């Protein structure tokens, strides 16, 4: 018999579980397991009413263990830990058993089998709980400093935001100059303020801040530690190269984007007069009067939209996404051209115009100013050739707005409205273990509710390294990353899961196998009573358990998943079902 007093709650999940698993049968089967004092079923264990009932049972029946058999621990671990806490039960004496995703939903064709499996799973959960001990979160002090990677508009604004909120910032820029893409722009939409000036004003402000340190020509080449206490290594590519270690609490990645580079011959790219949007923007920015190309005034411009964006899936590494900034940027470019005085005919060949939000007004203005918009079908893209007689470029397109009439447009310049593509940052991805999405941009945890956090605690992403964004959106996400950093660093401490490895020093003879196998560098050799033994850095250990089986002397155990608990769970799983 067991001394423990355990409460077991089995969920119907409104039918999600009980349509396939006979929950009453499960309750009856586990009710007399050693240590079980309360065994109940509930329509929804996560409901306020059932949680309240649990709290009441724990207090009235003096329970010292809790088992909830419902859905995945990903969904409700924190819900039921909270219920345990409210009843003054240590949250680590609660065990979640998954009888939905891993049982009822997977065995919809075998109700008896699903019920049997659920009984075994719940028994294992009870066995695990029987050997549970109270654990306290590991509290680590945090470093009130953040590392910002990338010195474009997002990174600069993030560094300034950190300083504003009272956190020090270390900014690392790969290039010799800060400012990124935006520093190379003159007038930008919607208010035509120059990018160069925007960067200059940010830079001017940063120079006044003693708590912001900037490294240019530098890269982050190493990261260890855990959130709140990262040790990062910066390499400054000077001669000779210099490596600088920094201690930071969080890391904000703002490495930006690359512009799509068309293939040779894609829409005539490579022909004289066929340029990409950034090349065209440079041309506009560097001309004071009317646009001139190779000594000749530019009279006709054809823009081809969606180059490198919304590509068909059959292309290798197709960019399936819309780059969303390019419609606005091209329309704005056409307005800038028109404002330069000389009469220029401008033709916009598009698939769909996506001048979303306030930028719709730019589109309207561009049409009123005289730009002509022609829509081509996805499967009938325009073709660019050179007219041998006139020497001009010639763009042919079937305009869907003119009943598909085939048109030939003479042009001095053809602008390929190119989108954003992810930067190749393989080294950084490896160093920070950054999650990369299908589109090869960096991935957030949740697109709506956790838009700048990554699965790596304390590592945030912002700006166009996450996906196409204009500068306003990049800055907004940069400030979101600042807020998230402040959320953990301003408290001064962080609470980590106590489910970490522990060493029994009297059994350890230091062979070093655990240190070799640890992927996080959490094992250290320490001297104890004139003996070398292993010690675990609790703040660094992730509780993966990799070190436990390699120890030849069974000197390591994992808190919350001890060998004894795992063995008891196996016994619980294998027990006969009567």
């Amino acid at each position, binding site marked *: 018999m067991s001394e423990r007093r355990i409460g077991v709650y089995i969920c119907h999940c409104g039918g999600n579980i009980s349509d396939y698993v006979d929950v009453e049968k499960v309750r009856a089967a586990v009710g007399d397991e050693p240590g079980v004092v309360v065994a109940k079923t509930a329509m929804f264990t996560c409901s306020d009413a059932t949680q309240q009932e649990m709290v009441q049972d724990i207090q009235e029946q003096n329970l010292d263990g809790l088992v909830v058999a419902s859905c995945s621990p990903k969904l409700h671990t924190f819900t039921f830990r909270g219920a345990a806490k409210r009843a003054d039960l240590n949250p680590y004496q609660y065990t979640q058993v998954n009888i939905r995703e891993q049982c009822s939903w997977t065995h919809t064709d075998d109700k008896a089998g699903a019920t049997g499996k659920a009984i075994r799973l719940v028994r294992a959960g009870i066995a695990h709980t029987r050997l549970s001990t109270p654990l306290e979160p590991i509290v680590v002090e945090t470093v009130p400093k953040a590392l910002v990677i990338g010195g474009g508009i997002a990174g600069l604004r993030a560094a300034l935001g950190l300083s504003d909120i009272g956190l020090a910032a270390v900014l690392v820029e790969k290039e010799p100059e800060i400012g990124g893409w935006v520093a190379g722009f003159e007038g930008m939409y919607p208010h035509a303020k120059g990018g160069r000036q925007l960067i200059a004003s940010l830079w001017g402000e940063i120079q006044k801040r003693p708590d912001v340190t900037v490294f240019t020509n530098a890269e982050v080449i190493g990261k260890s530690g855990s959130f709140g206490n990262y040790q990062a290594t910066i390499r400054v590519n000077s001669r000779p190269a210099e490596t600088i270690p920094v201690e930071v609490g969080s890391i904000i990645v703002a490495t930006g984007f690359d512009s799509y580079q068309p293939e040779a011959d894609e829409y005539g790219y490579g022909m004289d007069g066929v340029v990409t949007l950034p090349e065209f923007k440079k041309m506009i920015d560097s001309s004071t009067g009317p646009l001139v190309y190779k000594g000749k005034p530019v009279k006709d411009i054809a823009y081809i939209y969606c180059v490198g964006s919304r590509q068909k899936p059959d292309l290798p590494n197709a960019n399936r996404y819309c780059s969303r900034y390019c419609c606005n940027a091209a329309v704005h470019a056409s307005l800038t051209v028109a404002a330069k005085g000389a009469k220029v005919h401008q033709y916009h060949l598009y698939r769909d115009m996506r001048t979303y939000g306030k930028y719709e007004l730019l589109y309207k203005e561009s049409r009123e100013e005289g730009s002509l918009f022609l829509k081509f079908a996805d499967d009938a893209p325009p073709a660019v050739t050179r007219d041998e007689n006139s020497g001009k470029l010639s763009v042919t397109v079937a305009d869907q707005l003119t009943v598909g009439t085939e*048109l*030939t447009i003479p042009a001095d310049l053809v602008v390929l409205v190119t989108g954003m593509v992810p930067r190749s940052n393989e080294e950084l991805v490896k160093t920070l273990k950054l999650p990369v999405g299908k589109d090869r941009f960096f991935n957030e945890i949740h697109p709506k509710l956790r838009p700048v956090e990554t699965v790596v605690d304390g590592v945030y992403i912002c700006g166009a390294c996450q996906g196409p964004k204009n500068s306003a959106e990049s800055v907004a996400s940069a400030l979101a990353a600042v807020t998230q950093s402040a959320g953990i660093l301003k408290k001064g401490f962080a609470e980590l899961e106590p489910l970490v490895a522990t060493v029994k020093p009297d059994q350890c003879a230091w062979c070093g196998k655990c240190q070799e196998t640890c992927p996080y560098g959490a094992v250290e050799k320490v001297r104890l009573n004139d003996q070398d033994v292993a010690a675990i850095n609790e703040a660094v250990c992730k509780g993966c358990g990799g070190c436990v089986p390699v120890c030849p002397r069974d000197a390591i155990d994992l808190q919350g998943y001890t060998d004894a608990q795992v063995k008891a769970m196996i016994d619980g799983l294998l027990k006969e079902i009567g």
Partner: protein
Amino acid sequence: MALLNPDLVDVVRQNNEFNASACMNCGVCSAVCPMGIELLPRKLFRYVLLGMEDQVKVNTETIYSCLLCKVCEVNCPAGVHIAENVRSLRHFINRQVFRL
């Protein structure tokens, strides 16, 4: 295959108002036209904007079939001054086709 002549619209505009830049080709105008003129105004305006002069001229009859009743104009979601544009087109035809 038609070659674009972006200057045609300036000829039509001579002393007249012609503005169809807001037209998004939805077809409401054609749907509500009591004369059932399918061509006017959306396709014809497009020909003017693109400079397809021949297409405009061969449709002289159509341009004069319009009653200028403005049913299309009050229903136009883009607020194009359709009747005024048709007047400008007639002026253009008078000059260019009838040599008036």
